[in-house]
């Protein structure tokens, strides 16, 4: 009886050791596979993007908001590592880059909020922004078109809405089917 228990313990120990050694190996295999697929994608065509200044359209959008969206877009698009280079509007070196897409952003809706109202009431005073984002080729062909929202509802200053909006736009571009194909052939339209 005692020998049986001892054997069982040894078997458990061996199983445990096997699991411990097997799992990292499996994880390593997965990482390697993911890296190789990412490598395949990058080896296809690496596109660069030029971020245009935000157009206010028919919306009475404060200039500080337009600048904040533009600056946050540059930062967030750089963070995604989706594009080879992120150019700013007016950059003269963009003409030397081979594959460049242009990101145009037009404000569609803006609800000015109040930080004090948010702090006092919690449910009101939200700053809301809705923009139309278009990713175009140099020839003007629309590759991706989405309506994206960004808002600040509870904590933070009004300008935080621009940060959330830029993050959402970058996320939309990353998750779009254009992004996975790596080719600007299809037009994706929708709302996030």
């Amino acid at each position, binding site marked *: 009886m005692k020998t049986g228990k001892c054997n069982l313990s040894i078997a458990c120990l061996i199983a445990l050791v096997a699991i411990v050694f097997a799992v990292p190996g499996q994880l390593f295999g997965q990482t390697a596979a993911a890296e190789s697929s990412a490598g395949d994608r990058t080896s296809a065509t690496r596109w660069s993007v030029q971020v245009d*200044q935000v157009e206010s359209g028919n919306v009475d959008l*404060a*200039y*500080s908001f*337009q*600048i*904040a969206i*533009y*600056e*946050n877009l540059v930062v967030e698009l750089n963070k995604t590592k989706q594009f080879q280079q992120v*150019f*700013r*509007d*007016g*950059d*003269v*070196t963009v003409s030397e880059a081979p594959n460049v897409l242009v990101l145009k952003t037009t404000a569609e809706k803006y609800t*000015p*909020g*109040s*930080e*004090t*109202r948010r*702090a*006092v*009431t919690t449910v009101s*005073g939200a700053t809301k922004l809705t923009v139309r984002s278009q990713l175009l080729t140099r020839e003007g062909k629309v590759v991706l078109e989405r309506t994206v929202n960004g808002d600040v509802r509870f*904590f933070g*200053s*009004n*300008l935080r809405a621009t940060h959330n909006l830029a993050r959402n736009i970058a996320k939309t571009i990353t998750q779009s089917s254009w992004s996975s194909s790596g080719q600007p052939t299809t037009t994706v339209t929708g709302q996030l």
Partner: protein
Amino acid sequence: MDLFVVSRSHSAAYHPDRRHALWLSTVLLCFSLTAPAQQTSQRGDTRAPFSTRATHLLGFANARDNGTGTLSVQGDSLQFQQNGRPGTEVKIASVRDVFLGAESKQVGGLPMTLGKTAAPFGGGRVVSVFAHKKYDTLTLQYVDADQGIHGAIFQLAKGQGELAKSELIARGVIVSSHQDQSTKESVTEATHENR
């Protein structure tokens, strides 16, 4: 004798006055000639540097976001010096536009927010009604060496934004015809807060 005395006293009284008048007019003439030269030199680089406390919200050169420091206009550059960090600067000639705005913000930052959230019986909300302050926002648009457009936003104490803008205009920055948002935003904020 009397005649001689009188004539002598006349000459003694007249000649020194004439000499003084001549000397005075020469000095005045010299002053008037040197005054324009002095004015010209004052208009040059000897203009007193402008500086104010500011919070950098985003976009200025390599400055850290939401960092507090000193925004100054010195010579031909606009500098932002954060506390205990090397300063960053942008040439005034590269600034393309300046806009003013106004914001009302809750004071105290994250600690205050957490404190207000933790306060029982909605006490934090009452504090929030009074714990806000109005600021000016100074939005700049400038270009880098490759002509790429950058934007920077600073938060300044109320009234300082106008001074900073005036200083930049005085140093040659051309402001576009966009209307400053300060008045408009203040009205919007006030309307929201009165509701």
